[in-house]
């Protein structure tokens, strides 16, 4: 009896030590970083959300009303919940590792503080990638691309194994609340690492209206390059060049 009691106690102690080192210690190390609430997140509404309201005004108005911080919070939360309910996370990771050239493929390497928010409760790092990582997904594709992709993945990316999500659309084939929310969610992922997006956009708009001689040049260049070169120029870090070519129908 005595011996088996010792077994029990020592076993529990070992278990406690292991759990401390693997689970509690990382938590203590990271506790300094404040946890962002949904309200904190909504202070930075990505521009794709406003664009969503412009792209799909009828649907957006029906389900969310006006595009503002409040409706963003609702859409983001719903989108995250669908991401979990449809178990997208078994096919998509949310973590850019500092190895295997992932920073070239996806963008900035993941860092702890970007995960300290309620949208990562439970965390969605995941351990399997059938499709690409999504933590830098914001702005990689347009809202329309996502809508078409969710509706019929293989017509947008031939040969893909991602399922189509018919229930993101209502009977007439328009995006419903689920669809709009999921797009909001994927367009939010990583938007906080891409402030350069806004800067470059400003530069581009200025470049569009310089003096006459220059404007001729840009105009000449535009038709040839705009479609393929623009995404690259807009996001030098995300390595848009290595995105699947099928992505642009």
């Amino acid at each position: 009896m005595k011996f088996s009691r010792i077994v029990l106690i020592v076993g529990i102690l070992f278990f406690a030590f292991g759990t401390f080192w693997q689970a509690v210690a990382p938590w203590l190390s990271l506790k300094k970083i404040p946890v962002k609430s949904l309200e904190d997140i909504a202070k930075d509404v990505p521009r794709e959300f406003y664009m969503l309201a412009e792209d799909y005004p009828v649907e957006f108005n029906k389900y969310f009303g006006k595009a503002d911080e409040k409706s963003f919070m609702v859409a983001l939360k719903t989108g995250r919940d669908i991401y979990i309910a449809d178990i997208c996370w078994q096919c998509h990771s949310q973590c850019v590792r500092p190895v295997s050239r992932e920073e070239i493929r996806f963008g900035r390497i993941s860092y702890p503080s970007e995960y300290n928010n309620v949208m990562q409760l439970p965390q969605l790092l995941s351990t399997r990638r059938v499709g690409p990582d999504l933590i830098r997904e914001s702005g990689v594709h347009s809202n329309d691309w996502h809508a078409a992709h969710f509706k019929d993945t293989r017509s947008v990316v031939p040969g893909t194994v991602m399922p189509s999500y018919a229930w993101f659309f209502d009977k007439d084939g328009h995006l419903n609340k689920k669809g709009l929310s999921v797009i909001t969610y994927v367009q939010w992922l990583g938007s906080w690492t891409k402030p350069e997006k806004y800067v470059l956009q400003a530069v581009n708009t200025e470049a569009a209206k310089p003096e006459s001689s220059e404007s001729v040049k840009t105009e000449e260049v535009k038709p040839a390059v705009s479609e393929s070169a623009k995404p690259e120029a807009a996001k030098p870090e995300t390595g848009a060049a290595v995105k699947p070519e099928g992505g642009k129908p």
Partner: protein
Amino acid sequence: MKSEQDSIINYDLVYAHIVASIVLLAVVFLAGMLYSLQFLHLYPFPGIEFLSPGRVRTVHTNGAVYGFIVNGFTAALYWALPRLTGQRVMNEKYLGWFMFIALQGAVAATAIGILAGDSQAIPWGETPWYVDPFIVVWLLLALVQFTTPIYKLANKEPLYAANWYMIAGLVWIPMVYIMGNYVPVFFVPGIAGAAITGTWIHDAVGLYVTPIGWGLCYYFIPVILKKPVWSHALSLLGFWGLAFFYPLQGVHHYLWSPIPMYAQYAAVLSTIVLELAVVSVIVNFMMTLKGRAEALKESIPLRWIYVGIINYAITCFQCAIQVLLTTQKVIHYTDWVVGHAHLIMYGTFGFWIMGFISYLWPKVNHSETYSKALDEWAFWLLLLGMELMWVDLLAGGLIQGFTWWSLSPWMDSIRYSFPFWIGRTASGTLMSIGLCFYIYNFYKTGRKKTVSLIHAHEVGAGGGVR
């Protein structure tokens, strides 16, 4: 003819858990095959929300653990523990049957909850929040139910190694389950949550499935071979190695993530060191077989168990390599890991359960195996399918990893994986055919009793209930 030992076993409970385990294994196979069709563009139910492929995958993984493995282990525990200790479990008539029904209810609720979209994003913790408390209660009841005979015996004599493993597994799992299914879901977000999740994923395998599986092998192998385990000292070494190094490796599921490096280094190191403990157990089992290897020809249960042990050796060797931070650069996130998961969950623990069931099923039915030939076919088909699937997924995983690293377009990795996904479905088909043979044989063996040995059953099983 009943020995005194048999009268303290409740045959009906063993019977019921075995049936549940096999039925749920068939469900697991079905879900796995279905999901693998998604990768071949052949998924038969596109556009049905309830059968969204991701949800089917989750039913597959959860069914494997909570349905097949827990039921199989519980059946084997109801048999092995009374025989090991000479004592009854705490209560069969009420607690035993309540636990049986509760477990099947929890599994069904989990599957339906996942399909309805109520899952939680924790690997193997996808059980919806409203099922979690019941599972915790179930695990606590199992703890009471199965440690009672050990406790009674411990007052009289020293324990077998098998009992230690069982106690350890039964004590650890409720704590681990509570940690994994509540803390990262409701309290700790982000990277710290990932560390806790990793610890849970690994502990579920390492602190429940592994010790109970080892413990049961330490019972069944000597019993089938009718000779003692080779070395008691090695079985102790294995136990302490497991207890010390297993809880330390959770973070190895998230290597190269932003989790603090001290946790990652500890996980890598302890994973490698754990191989020593595992090797000690494998050596012990193998040396027990020494001089009796011809028994493998006769006894299919023994063959299941030993093939499982060989698969275990392979997986663990593989594990020590794949955990290195260098290897992780390539294989993390790929099908390699899926191949590894299948070899350990089915190729090892699953095969052990198949072995236990092959051994127990004729006994609880007081009959003979219906057809030896069918049994052989089932064995070889399942074995062949399993090993093919493993090789296939490892190769596919390497190709995916290197394709990503080479910065080729993402779709290239999908295109290159295609042959391997066909291979997976093909080997899954082989396994499914094998399982059909197994189940047919199983069914026929069960039917035999009602014809010829109904009397013996009444005496035996009835005695158990009373």
